[in-house]
Structures are given as structure tokens and as C-alpha cells.
């Protein structure tokens, strides 16, 4: 096949699409576009959910790296020295300790079980964006005592009756109100609500935060112990780098990255997502292949006499085959472009209006590589679907074709 032959094949393909049945061309492009969108939507949504969960886990639970007590220990001990060691390492933005106690919250007639987490507010600001999520009042100060910040679901809504609540709450606590916390160890204290926050991450939103200073009054162990330390990496430093560094520099506690923890907790879910993605991909590829196969088969069957004529006037069968091949390529490329546009529009829409559940909120997570890989897969399927009938009809002898 020379340049001239390809040029003629392309001219025939282009003119057939331009001047042939326009509605069938538009419909085919639409179907390919929808198949592309279908191929990319579910994986992108699952990736979005995964990204959302990962981000929230990093932001509100464990940071990039979690330092927890080694096997057999109840707490991360020698807290001051451990924090100083971690904070001194390159790549560490900040490390901050957490100490959690189960407690009962009381407000007027309402009683609610909750986790009370103690934090070092100044350090916590460098590790978690919790301080940016205040919906009322203000964040904790470093040495605050007798003050607490609570999640919006914990605070509740005074306009909703207790029996109508989806999630148990204190029934409408407002900033400045006083709540009583009973720690179960005999320590009971009234706290002023300094602020109410809402992160969208249910585990954080159903908790209550006090300062480490305050917690040390509740449980003296909190002064030099922590349930765990969350570590935030500086931009450009990987979690694995920080983990290896901590181990190398002698942090004797258990050190795990977010990925380590998520792989353990979400491994089964990720496997399920992968299976669903694969099924979605295969179905889309099959639909595209079948549709294009049918379109080109109908086109070739309707054009058999014309194909015979073209061969009679000296047009080679390869030119005829590539004519239909180019038609498929053009349809597939336009369909894929349409699919990319639809996918990007959906991504933009979902960025503005994410899917929100009590556990997570998700957007479409699309990478250029996702678009490229799916485009290539669909393109290859389309080319096969188009060339098979084109090959068959181009091999037909002239007499048979012309009599069609």
C-alpha cells in the first residue's frame, strides 16, 4: 500500500461518512462515545471513592504515616523523645500524638457514647485540616482546658425529634453550651463547647476533641503516652520514604503507611472494585465491537455492487478494505473524543456536586493515563470490528460483488 492508495482509501471513507447516511454516522459516534463513558465511569468513580477515603483517612485519622504501639505495648511511650526524633527527620512536616478515651456525653436529657480524642492543637494544625472545618465557633487553643470541639452530627439539630434522628446526637448543642463528659474512670467534667466542625468523614465527625493538657487531667498517662502518632509528610516525600526513614533512625514502634493500612482494611473491597471494573470494560468493548461490526457489515453488504465496480475500474482490494477501515477509525476516534468530553463533563459536574454518603464523598477520579489506556483499548476493538467485514467483502470476486 502506497501513499496514493491510502489517499484514495481515505477519500472514499471520508466522503462516505460525509455524504452517506448522516443519522447512522451520528448514532454510531454516540454509541461509541457512550461505550467509552461506560468504560471509564465506574473505574473513575471507584478511584474517586478510593481517593476520597484515602484523603479523609490521611487528613482525619492517620496522616501519611502512623506510628502505633509495638506488639504487646498499650501505648506509644516516651512520647516527648519519640516526637522529637520524628519531627527532626527530613521529609516530616509534623508529627502529632493522639490519645483517645471512650466516654459518655450528657446534654440536658440526652446521653450519647462517643470517643474523646486529645490533640495538641498547634501540631494538629500542621497534620490535619480539621481546624478549617469549623462550622460554628472556633478551633481549640494549645492550652485550652474545659473546652471541647464536637462534630456536627454529635451536636445534633434541635428541630429534629430524638425518635426521628438518623444518628443519635445531643439534640442541638450550640457553641457556648455546656456538656458533661463522663470518662468512665470516675472523672466527670463539664466542658464549654468552643466549636462545632464538620469534615464529611463520619469517624471524625462522631468524635469529640479536647486538648492534651485537658486529657492529662483525665488520665495522667496522656502526659507522656499516646495511643498513636500521626505523621504528615512534606510535599514531594513519599510515605514509604518516611516509613523507611523512621525505622532506620530507630523509631521502635510499629510504623505503617496509609497504603499499608488501607491495603489491609480495604483489600477485599479493592478486589471487588477491580472485578466490577473489568466486567464493565469487557461489556463496553463487546458492545462497541458488535455495533461497529454491524455498522460496517451493513455498509459493505449495501455497497457490494459498488465494491465490484471499484474493483472493475482498477481499485485494489486493499484500498477497498482500508476505505472501510478508515471509516471505522474515524467513527471510533470521533466516538472516543465524544466519550472523553462526556467523561470530563461528568467529572466537572461531580467535582461540583460530589456523591456524598455518611461515610465518604466521591468525585470522578480521571487521570490522563486512564483516558489514554481506555482510548487505545476501544480503538483497537473498533479497528478489529471494522476490518473483519471489510476484509471479507474486499476478497469477494468482482462478478459476485457486481451481481449483488
Amino acid at each position: 500500500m502506497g501513499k496514493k492508495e491510502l489517499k484514495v482509501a481515505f477519500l472514499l471513507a471520508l466522503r462516505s461518512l460525509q455524504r452517506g447516511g448522516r443519522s447512522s454516522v451520528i448514532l454510531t459516534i454516540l454509541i461509541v462515545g457512550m461505550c467509552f463513558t461506560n468504560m471509564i465511569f465506574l473505574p473513575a468513580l471507584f478511584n474517586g471513592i478510593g481517593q476520597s477515603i484515602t484523603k479523609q483517612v490521611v487528613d482525619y485519622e492517620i496522616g501519611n504515616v502512623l506510628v502505633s504501639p509495638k506488639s504487646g505495648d498499650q501505648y506509644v511511650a516516651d512520647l516527648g523523645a519519640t516526637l522529637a526524633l520524628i519531627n527532626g527527620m527530613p521529609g516530616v512536616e509534623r508529627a502529632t500524638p493522639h490519645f483517645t478515651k471512650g466516654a459518655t456525653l450528657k446534654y440536658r436529657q440526652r446521653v450519647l457514647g462517643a470517643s474523646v480524642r486529645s490533640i495538641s492543637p498547634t501540631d494538629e494544625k500542621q497534620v490535619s485540616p480539621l481546624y478549617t472545618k469549623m462550622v460554628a465557633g472556633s478551633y481549640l487553643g494549645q492550652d485550652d482546658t474545659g473546652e471541647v470541639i464536637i462534630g456536627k452530627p454529635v451536636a445534633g439539630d434541635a428541630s429534629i425529634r430524638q425518635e426521628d434522628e438518623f444518628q443519635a446526637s445531643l439534640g442541638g448543642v450550640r457553641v457556648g453550651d455546656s456538656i458533661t463528659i463522663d470518662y468512665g474512670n470516675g472523672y466527670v467534667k463539664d466542658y464549654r463547647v468552643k466549636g462545632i466542625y464538620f469534615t464529611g468523614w463520619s469517624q471524625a465527625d462522631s468524635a469529640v476533641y479536647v486538648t492534651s493538657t485537658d486529657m492529662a487531667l483525665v488520665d495522667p498517662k496522656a502526659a507522656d503516652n499516646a495511643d498513636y502518632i500521626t505523621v504528615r509528610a512534606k510535599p514531594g516525600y513519599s510515605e514509604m520514604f518516611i516509613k523507611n526513614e523512621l525505622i532506620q533512625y530507630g523509631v521502635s514502634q510499629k510504623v505503617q503507611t496509609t497504603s499499608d493500612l488501607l491495603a489491609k482494611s480495604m483489600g477485599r473491597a479493592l478486589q471487588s472494585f477491580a472485578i466490577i471494573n473489568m466486567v464493565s470494560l469487557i461489556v463496553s468493548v463487546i458492545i462497541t465491537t458488535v455495533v461497529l461490526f454491524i455498522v460496517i457489515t451493513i455498509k459493505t453488504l449495501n455497497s457490494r455492487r459498488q465494491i465490484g465496480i471499484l474493483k472493475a475500474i482498477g481499485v485494489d482490494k486493499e484500498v477497498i478494505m482500508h476505505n472501510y477501515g478508515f471509516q471505522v477509525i474515524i467513527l471510533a476516534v470521533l466516538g472516543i473524543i465524544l466519550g472523553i468530553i462526556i467523561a470530563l463533563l461528568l467529572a466537572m459536574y461531580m467535582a461540583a456536586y460530589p456523591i456524598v454518603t455518611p461515610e465518604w464523598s466521591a468525585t470522578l477520579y480521571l487521570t490522563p493515563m486512564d483516558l489514554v489506556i481506555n482510548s487505545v483499548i476501544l480503538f483497537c476493538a473498533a479497528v478489529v470490528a471494522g476490518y473483519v467485514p471489510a476484509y471479507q467483502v474486499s476478497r469477494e470476486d468482482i462478478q459476485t460483488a457486481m451481481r449483488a
Partner: protein
Amino acid sequence: MIEIADLQKIYRMGDVEVRALDGVTLDIAKGEFLGIMGASGSGKTTLLHMLGLLDTPTSGSIAIDGTDISRLNDYEKTLFRLYKLGYVFQDYALVPDLTVMENVTLPAMLRKDLTEKQYHDASIDILTKIGMLDRQDHLPRELSGGQQQRVSIARAIVSKPDILFADEPCANLDTENSRMVLDLFREINEEMQQTIVMVSHEDWHKDYFHRIIRLQDGKVISDGLTSTKSH
């Protein structure tokens, strides 16, 4: 130019054997305007298809310019048709999605011995000659039958093939358009010394031919020059 020896074409349909051509032997000289005439089913179109390399004979041989075409493979036959032969069909057989100009240039575009400028200029010349230049951007469906047949002829001769085959080119035309087409053939034949082999069953067409062979049941029953040639 064309040497045909003992050409046979037998179609088998179950146990029935149909001899479409039965021992045709014939020579066609360069520059000749040959008419193949005969009743329907006499084997005219079958013979034309054999000569135009659109079908293969059951036995016998055809040599064009010394080339035994039975020795050519599929690809060589395609090239032979492209470079040596032109074809005009009864139903014009234009590509419906191409304009007049694109239809005319289509086979020439594939020829390696013609540049884009050469085949474009040749197409302009031939469209001017047949009076269709002002319709060069029209699609076939926007033309009358006579106009489509003129475009079909332009496509067949744009790259100056050695032999032009025409399979009942006036079958779908009225008398006026038929005469226009036949005049065009005559002009091409006289001006360009173009060999033309045309199938017809219209008796009045014989006035245009130099020579007429008549077929009956796949056999040549007469072969003679016409008064046109003697002029």
C-alpha cells in the same frame, strides 16, 4: 491488440450446464470501434467481462498487447485494469458519495505514472470535452441519466487507457442522450485512436461501429466491417 482463441465459459447450476461462450475466436485491432451485438442471453456481456478481466474463462485464451491474461494473478489483473483498460457500465456505476470531479479522477489518482497536477488537468480537459465542467462539484444523484453516463465515460478515459469497454452504455438512456454518448465514443475513437469494444442490442447503433460481431448461443455467427469503417 486483443487475440481471443477458442474462448469458452460454462456455468454449472447443479446438473445443468450453460455454455455462455462456446469457442469464441476473435482478433481486435488497435483503434477499432467494435460492436458486439446479439439477442439477450447470447453471451455479449460475458464476452465483455472476459475481455475486461472481470471474469475468468473456463477454457481458451485472451492476449492483450501480447500479455496472456490467464497468467496474471489477482493483483496484476487489478493493475492491468487500472493502466490498460477503461470500463463504462450500463447503469453508469458512479460512486454516489463522490462529486463528478472526484469520480472522474478516482482511477487516475491511483496511477503511479500520473502526478496530481497531471490527473487534475486531464480531468478538467475531459470534463470540458463532455460539457460537464460546470457540474464538477455535483453529486451523481443531482445529474440526469445522460449526464451520469458522460461522467462515467470521462472516468473511463481520463487516464487514456488502451482499450475502452462499454456494456450497453445507452440501455438506460433516451434516444437523444444515446446519440450524445455514441457521438462521444466516436469522437474519442477518431481523435485519440482509442480502441472501443461496445456491447449493444440496439440495431441503430451499428452505424457507429467499424466492425460488428454477432453472437448467438455463445458463438460468433457473423463478423464483418460496417460501412462506417469503409468511410
